């Protein structure tokens, strides 16, 4: 089973081109969708989740025409939105059971077993009787993934799941995600590079509604090998460097700006070569994409 996105476009009524001819082939396994805020990730995710209409293009999951056969897709879809709330006065067990019913699990004993297993899986079993009002951010996200897995989805869409989670919570969440079988297409959208690095076998970077890069993370990093150099500079010098080099990122390190630049050969000038990681790839792509002239 493969998710094939072909020339998908969407322009909002206010003129913003959220998706421009997006084409992606997404195999089973974890797929990371990386992009800055406002890149169109959520629009893409919502379109894939049948929650939004596209203007043109097509999306197929196996035989299912995602844009037209919405209900067929929903039967095999698990979706965790970027932001969601929970009914405060209900326990996790009750709400999960409710979702199980509305996802079509009609047999009561099967449903109870499933709910129990998922609560254990997401480590919520101990707190299953508590009202959801008291849940922490991490618990809420784990509940979110539990509900997304109820119908044993073939396509699982997880939109920015780790935003706002502390590292411990994030790890716990990854543990749940990483276990998903090889038979599922899992799309994880995020603007956190580490998420993709740690979990995904395939990825794409999108910016301003376009796919700028797609492939296997390690392969992509390989492509950038020997092209990234860094230097710690003084603050006033920043603009000067920006004019002379392709500065893809700037970070503060011990209070001083450290810049990463992209260069085919060693620029000298105090720059030292670094082992490119996914973050550099990400920033370089964003850089290229937003400053096409300087490329």
């Amino acid at each position, binding site marked *: 089973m493969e998710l094939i996105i072909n020339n998908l476009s969407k322009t909002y009524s206010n003129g913003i081109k959220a998706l421009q001819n997006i084409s992606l082939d997404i195999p089973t396994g974890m797929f990371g969708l990386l992009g800055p805020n406002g890149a169109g990730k959520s629009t893409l995710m919502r379109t894939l*989740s049948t929650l939004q209409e596209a203007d043109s293009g097509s999306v197929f999951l196996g035989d299912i025409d995602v844009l037209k056969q919405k209900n067929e897709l*929903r039967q095999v879809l698990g979706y965790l939105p970027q932001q969601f709330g929970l009914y405060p006065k209900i326990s996790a067990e009750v709400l999960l059971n409710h979702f199980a019913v*509305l996802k*079509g699990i009609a047999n009561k004993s099967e449903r109870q077993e499933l709910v129990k*297993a998922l609560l254990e899986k997401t*480590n919520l079993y101990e707190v299953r009787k508590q009202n959801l009002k008291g849940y922490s951010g991490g618990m809420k996200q784990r509940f979110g993934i539990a509900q997304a897995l109820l119908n044993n989805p073939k396509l699982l869409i997880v939109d920015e799941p780790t935003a706002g989670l502390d590292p411990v919570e994030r790890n716990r969440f990854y*543990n*749940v995600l990483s276990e998903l079988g090889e038979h599922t297409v899992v799309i994880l959208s995020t603007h956190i590079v580490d998420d993709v690095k740690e979990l995904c076998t395939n990825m794409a970077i999108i910016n301003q509604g376009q796919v700028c890069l797609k492939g296997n993370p390690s392969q992509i990093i390989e492509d950038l090998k020997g092209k990234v150099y860094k230097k710690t500079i003084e603050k006033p010098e920043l603009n000067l460097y920006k004019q002379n080099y392709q500065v893809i990122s700037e970070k503060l390190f011990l209070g001083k700006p450290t810049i990463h630049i992209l260069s085919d050969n060693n620029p000298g000038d105090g720059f030292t070569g670094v082992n490119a990681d996914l973050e550099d790839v990400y920033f370089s792509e964003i850089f290229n994409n937003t400053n096409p002239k300087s490329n």
Partner: protein
Amino acid sequence: MWYNIFKFEIQYRIKRPDTYVFFLFLFLFSIVGVDFVFQGADFGAMKKNSPFVIAKTMGAITGIFMILASMIMGVSVLRDFEYEIESLIFSTTIKKKDYLLGRFLGSFTVLLFVFSGVLFGMMLGEFMPWHNPNYLLEFSFLTYLKTFLIVTLPTLFFGASLFFVTGALSRNLVVVYTQGIFLFVVFMLTKAITNQFWQAILDPFSLTTTTFVTKSWSALERGTQSIPFFGGALMYNKLFWFSLGILALLYGYKKFNFNVIKNKQSKRKKVQVSNIEPVSDASAITIPDAEKQYGMLSKWTQLKQFSWFYFLNICKQSSFWAIVICGMVIILINSVSLGTVYGVDSYPATYFIVEELKETSIYFFIIILVFYSGELVWKERGAKLNLIYDATAMSSFINLAGKYIALNLIYVVLMLALISSGIIFQTLNGYYNYEFSVYFSGFFLEILPSLALFTFIAFFVQALVNHKFVGIMVVIILFISTITLGVFGFDHDLYFFGGRSLGTYSDMNGYGHSLKPYLLIKSYWLFFGILLLIIGSLFIVRGTETNLLKRLKISKQRISKPLFIFGSVITIIFILLGSFIFYNTNVLNDYWTNSEATEFRIAYEKNLKSFEYLPQPKIVDVNLKVELYPLSRNYTAEGYYILKNTNEQPINEIHIQKLLERSVTLDTITFEGGATENNKYATYNYTIYQLNNTLNPGDSIKMNFKQSLTTKGFESGNSNSTIVGNGTFFKNQDFPTIGYSRKIELNDNDERSKYNLPERTSRASRDDMTELVNARSGGDSDGINFEMIIGTEINQTAIAPGNLIKQWTENNRSYYHYKMKQPIVNFYAMVSARYELKKDKWISKSDSITKHVALEIYYHKGHDYNIDRMMLSMKASLNYYSTHFSPYQYEQLRIMEFPRYAQFAQSFPGTVPFSESIGFVLDIDDETDVDMAFYVTAHEIAHQWFGMQVAAANVKGRHLILETLSQYAAMMVLKEHYPKERVQQFLDIQNDRYLEGKRRESGQEPALEFVENQEYIYYAKGAINMYALQKEIGEDKVNLALKRFINDWNIIDGSMKNHTNRYATSKDLLGYFKEVTPDNQQYIITELFESVCEF
């Protein structure tokens, strides 16, 4: 600082569309405000824009739309919590005082803007073309403004404070709405206060207050004067509520916590404990592969799940229980008036309780309907769970239907609560005959279907309109326009949403024949409602696409096959039911719109008016065989009239008017000697028979006829309730009448002038020779010989006037043969029901020959509370009247109970049909109540003299003879048997009734001798004045005058009546009074009867 917050609040609201929607709504509503609030009221001399009317209307509109205040003020602080920016705001340097003050003043300013819609709307309303300028004062901006400031502003301030504080403290919108109910309960409770002053002070909407401060005003003053404010009850009322508002604000200020978290500590702790749980063996768990089903069975499970889930959800809200408790409490503490007749309550029979409960709780149901439908449709979006729901394979329809069912279950809970409070009420009052079936049908057959249907509308609107509050407004507008459509006569069951109401419940007849068509029509609308729900589910927001046009576009792909099939089946059933209803109402029966009916009346008058005083013969003999079929609601009447020409000129043609109903047919009609039928006016059911042999003065002719009523199917609206399963009661007016019928004419004078018809007076002047010879229209006579065989179902008793000369059963039916030994007026009723019988007899004492009169009361089983009182009254009345006026003319006197479809008792020769609701179930306490069962009986029996012995000419003053004299006679009997205080109490009630009527009088109040159709004069003032007369000149003198009057004017052998063809008038009557009054007291007659004197 507060000013910035104030400014921000206003700027925020200026950008919100709902601000303008609310304003526009109030503006548009207020244009018809006066018409709505005073719907059906008789304005009388009151001008439609008099300060009094404006004050009442503004008060009522402000009260009704307090909901708007809750929507505006409630969200003011709540909003910050909903958008989760409270932490941003509370952590700034803003002070609590500034924050609250700014928010309150800002929202209150917006609220004032919104409610200024009432001010401007009402002003504009004055200039609407449907107002007759004669009913208006000159336009005065100041009056409106002043009333707005005095009446609306303080109420708004109180409401605003209350809603603002509850919104800020509870942080829950539904709690805010519930405050609206709280205010309503307060309003209802003030009605229970017997002290009028305190009632006026405490009424939150100052409706009773305006009445109170103008209590002593005449109609004219009310019509023009402005409402006194300073120093009066109105000012205290407003001060009271204003200070309550201030108190609420102070309390809110003290209690409002400028913290983000609302006491959550305990739960936090628990969570922290569980957070430490290790993650170790999660990977060892395999998730079982549960079977997913998308078939019917699964949908059914889902529907049940949704319904129950949302139902429990509402049940968990304390605001809902607040509503339930308010609903239950209101009947227990409110002074309920159960079927009250002249201040006497009835026994708390279940149907009275149900009616009372329905009346007080309807507002609660509407609030629940309007708000919870919005809450439910927005449930997922409110909890921000919508995207998760929307991405699952659930059907939008099943989801919406589940919510729909949940809301209906909520109604059921409230109804069960109301029923239990009703049972508690009955128990506390020592009444243990609970009649659960009446409770059940009253709520679950009468209210629930209507609520369920309107809930469909609410869900449909909320699904379509992507804005909760706008949706709520649209729903309210739709409700109001539905009601308005009905008022304007667009009320055919096929297109008047929800169709007819169930009609009155009667102990005797239950819901009778109206139940079946009612259920049929409700199911027709139910299927329509399901269609609405289906369409709503196709258009409802799913995902992030909120634009209506886009949603309309993609709705097509949302139609799944099962839904399509389901929708088609529903459509087919809907059409089939509709066709069946149409067949019944428009094919089997005639349906007339208001305008068609008006046109008919106009045409009738224009074409036939010239026949009005055409010399026609009078009926002198009636001999009929009536076969009643109560169950199928049919009858046939076959037999003859003998018509006598009492005129001075020969008659060649006889004009016969049949009832207009198509179900009534005149199957045959023949005249002795033969006649040719002229069908020129067949449209009007008016036929002219050209006699072969001229009917000369003094000659008689026999007219044979057969008339049948054949009820086919059912009619639109509520059909006639005279021939019913148990409790048939119809009169001889249903049989063919002779000559032009004035009753068919268009009655309303405003409408008449629109169609250029001359003004119609209810009574002709006292010297109108053409009417002086009429006592009532349609073949009058000076007495008829009456004989009737009447057959009915075997277990029913059929009653008509006369001695029962034979009774038998035949073909499993019961037959009764009645014959009057002496002539009677041409006025008789036929009655049939399953009766219990109470028998007694009365022996005349005053006559030289003793005469036995059989006394019979036919009553419904179980209605025996007051039978003894009625029997006592029969005897007492016969004693008094026969002693003081003239002998009783018949050999029997019967009272027959009939269903409460009509609420009166009426006298016919020797028979008195008496409504179920006015005497039989009254709970009379002799310590405190006037015995109205006794009194009404006495009044009706008096009509055996005034009406049956003496007939009054159909001119002004007619009812002085018929009704006022009966009032007098009954009072004398009451006086004889009850202590003075009871009589005084009765007179006090009459006085109130008179003043109330006088207040509503639109024309000049006539003197008693010229009274037309004003009940408040001929009943109320008549009673008072007659009582005064006998007090002044003596009871025996009044009785002597009446004795002479009857002796001279009775229709059988009256010494005056025998020499004239005219009937007695008030002038004749006053002559007898004057005769017995000493010269020095003659002025009393003038004062009491010939002039309008003020008390």
